[in-house]
């Protein structure tokens, strides 16, 4: 359905996206992952025809969208990261406005608005000015606006940023419903690995403008099939302890946060004795040490060297 062929975008001397190849089949939910500055938003801009690539092409049903962007725009819905709504207008007025942008009018527009408000659960608040809405409600309306013209392809750029878990679940369920009930194809970018794991059939991982991995959840996790993850928790983590772990020859990778250290080692390696010894040397007490199979987050760390939310 959609294909990115050697897609690149260069700003002055810097490549924001470099030779990205990607395909999306009809009815799929595709996850696009990457830390900040990975090139996701630039890629999304080119996929949605808002930005022209420096080189390469975006093909929809085997035709370049660059030739007839107007035709492509009629069948694509874009949900930007920002709340792209007029906050001085009501939910109803926003939908009316954007509906008219899509040349909808009269009873068609009215019915569509009712349907969308029902879908995003805002029928009761339709007459309220958007600036009085909670973050989650704004996000839901933001999604609703992109659905007014029944797009075949929905592009969602981090649609759950900064909202409460309840609204996030509502949005994720809505995306699932749209995909199942309307056979809508979705490209979904997120900072939340669990969302991508929950929603997506296939995942593309980007870093520094390059595509560094792709496949289903399982395929990607298999990248680390020969490794395991050890998660260490302590309230007293210090530099000495961390450097002792980093210098250990069997440790492949270490990521630290305030109270947790995650390290990757070969599957057969047991580090328990060494870790206890290091803790003693550094004068700290460990709260817990867990062995687990690698998650998508671990794969991401392995590939990019950065946590997803860095």
């Amino acid at each position, binding site marked *: 359905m959609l294909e990115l062929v050697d897609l690149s975008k260069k700003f002055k001397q810097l490549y924001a996206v470099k030779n990205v190849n990607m395909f999306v089949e009809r009815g799929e939910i595709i996850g696009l992952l990457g830390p900040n500055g990975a090139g996701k938003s630039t890629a999304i801009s080119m996929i949605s025809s808002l930005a022209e690539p420096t080189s390469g092409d975006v093909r929809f049903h085997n035709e370049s969208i660059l030739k007839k962007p107007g035709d492509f725009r009629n069948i694509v819905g874009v949900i930007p990261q920002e709340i792209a709504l*007029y906050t001085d207008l009501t939910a109803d007025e926003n939908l009316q406005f*954007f509906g008219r942008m899509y040349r909808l009018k009269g009873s068609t527009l009215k019915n569509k608005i009712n349907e969308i408000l029902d879908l995003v659960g805002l029928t009761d608040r339709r007459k309220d000015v958007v600036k009085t809405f909670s973050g989650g409600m704004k996000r839901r309306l933001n999604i609703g606006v992109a659905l007014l013209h029944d797009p075949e392809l929905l592009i969602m750029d981090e649609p759950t940023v900064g909202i409460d878990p309840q609204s996030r679940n509502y949005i994720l369920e809505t995306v699932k419903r749209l995909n199942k009930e309307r056979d809508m194809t979705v490209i979904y970018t997120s900072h939340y690995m669990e969302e991508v794991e929950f929603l997506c059939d296939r995942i593309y991982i980007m870093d520094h403008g390059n595509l560094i991995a792709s496949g289903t959840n399982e395929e990607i996790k298999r990248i680390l099939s020969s490794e395991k993850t050890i998660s260490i928790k302590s309230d007293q983590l210090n530099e000495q302890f961390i450097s002792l772990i980093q210098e250990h020859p069997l440790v492949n990778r270490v990521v630290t946060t305030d109270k947790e250290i995650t390290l990757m080692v070969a599957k057969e390696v047991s580090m328990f004795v060494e870790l206890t010894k290091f803790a003693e040397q550094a004068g700290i007490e460990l709260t817990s040490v867990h062995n687990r199979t690698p998650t998508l987050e671990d794969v991401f760390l392995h590939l990019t060297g950065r946590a997803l939310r860095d």
Partner: protein
Amino acid sequence: MIAIILAKFRMFIRNPWTFIIFTVMSLGFAFIIGGNGAVSTITVPITAEEGAIENINLKESLENEEAFRFNWLDEEEMRNQIENGKAEAGVILSDDSYQLIIGVESPNVSMIEQAVQRAYMKHNQKEAIVKAAEADTEDKRETLLQDFEATMESPVFEVETTRFTSEDAVIYDNTFQSLFGFTLFFVIYTIAYNLLPILVEKREGIWDRMILSPVKKWEVYVANLVYSFLEGYIQIVIIFCVFHYGLKLDFYGKFVEVLLLSVPYVFAIVALSILLTAIVKNVQQFNAVIPIIAVSMAMIGGAYWPLEIVESEILIALSKINPITYGMEILNGVVLYGYSFEELLYPISILVLMGVVMTGLGIHLMERRHV
């Protein structure tokens, strides 16, 4: 396109304060500084030597003066007023002469003297007629003077004196200077702050949403420009209407022309605003730049004071690239100088040219910056 304009007006109705504030400020400044066109009078203390001015003609003539109100006092009081700076000058009248007591040398003093001279001349003229007609009784004298007054009010023929106004002549009218100046100045803010949402819409992705819809990009631009133009123009119409209908300022019969000829100026300011919107990077920069641009343009363009009093070559040169200069030239030209359409064509053309160039440049810059 219509949907965009309607949505903008809907939001304007919800939040009209920027428009109201700048309209009220224009009205307030124009009214306070320029007045409402009524002629202000200067009070002049006046006294007469004992026994003088028995004839009321002289007194009446002075009291009929429009520019001055002669306040009859005794000589000591008059001198006190002048000494204390309460009056610029005073007049002591005698039978066939007068004395001018000057406290402050000002252009008003010579005008006071001219008024007093006119009164004496009229008085002497009437006395000469009475003498020539040999009206020796009081009744005859009174009848004669009444006939004279009646003839003066409806003469058999009138002699109209006109003069050619040379190209360099300057007509200064404080009311129109302030009205036009402050209106053209404050409308810059109204228009600019109406185009500011483009920056916000681009930042918040609303612009992208519109671009992704079947609406053409030019339609989005035109809708924004038309809306800003309408709001700026409506502000100008409201201000001029308040002065015309509310304060009875008759624009020398050129009210409709003034309204129509404001159009090129509003167009140029809309264009300037779109250029500024394209140049600045964010709302904070825009908020900082607009007052600087508006105030300096108003000073250089003659909105606060007439350009004719500016002597600096640099400022005069800068005024040539300033829309306010041409806006003021058009409005003053049509109202005060009675310019013909051919004479107005030059400033109109400059404003239209500025508008076209700045709109093109602004949109080009915006498109280049937009990723």
